């Protein structure tokens, strides 16, 4: 088994400016994300980030690990959103486990907010792309 480069830990602050920016570039003004009064009466009781915002930390970690700008062809990422990211949170992405198989490498990553899991990601890549 090859010793691979350690998967980096990445931290992102998700503040009101980040949520507003994502609403602006995506056009998603769902009141759960942008309306404090609506969000206060909603299922989370507070404004929460768009789901893909937490994913940004995963993508930065993977890109840093692979040493590339985007994801190379052949990479797949399966994401399960486990919980909301309240406004003002810091999202921490880290690897739970990196598994090596004959042809592929699988990274089981997670994002947490205050040690609460908010996202799980399974990143699969051809073995040739895994950084030693």
């Amino acid at each position, binding site marked *: 088994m090859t010793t691979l480069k350690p998967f980096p830990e990445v931290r992102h602050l998700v503040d009101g400016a980040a949520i507003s920016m*994502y609403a602006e570039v*995506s056009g998603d003004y769902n009141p759960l994300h942008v309306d404090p009064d609506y969000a206060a009466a909603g299922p989370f009781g507070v404004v929460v980030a768009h789901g*893909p915002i937490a994913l940004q*930390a995963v993508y930065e970690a993977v890109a840093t690990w692979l040493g590339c700008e985007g994801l190379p062809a052949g990479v797949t*990422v399966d994401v399960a*959103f486990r919980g909301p990211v309240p406004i003002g949170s810091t999202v921490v992405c880290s690897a739970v486990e990196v598994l090596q198989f004959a042809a592929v490498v699988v990274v089981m990553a997670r994002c947490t907010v205050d040690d609460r899991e908010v996202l799980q990601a399974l990143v699969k890549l051809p073995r040739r792309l895994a950084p030693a």
Partner: protein
Amino acid sequence: MQGDTLDGVPLLSQTRYQDLHAGQEFGPFVEPLSAAVSSVLRGELGTERAGAVAPAGVLPLVTLRVLRRALSGIPPGGVLLGQSFDVQAEIPSGCTLDVAVVVSDKDERDGRLYTTFRFTIENEGVVAALVDWTIRDA
């Protein structure tokens, strides 16, 4: 943003997830991707980093934009449960993409509705990525 619309598309949709049916197709939609948007999706939101290749963050962003166009706004109250991304080719940081979307699955469990969308993202006629979204009606 102007009033309750953005680029001529309502912010919130009158469509409900229960109105959709499996196999329903939308698009393809032409989606311009600017280098400036790619730059802000390369790391923590609020930072900018230029580059020639689009970061992976454009995939959820572009598909979100297309979903909004397909459904004439975002149906309010839906909760995003999962996404999957199958990258097949590099996307330049500034380009024009063609994105088609289909309702690939609808499922009702425990009185809750789950809707899955499959997006096919093409750049210059080549499939660059396949993206799936699963949303639970809140």
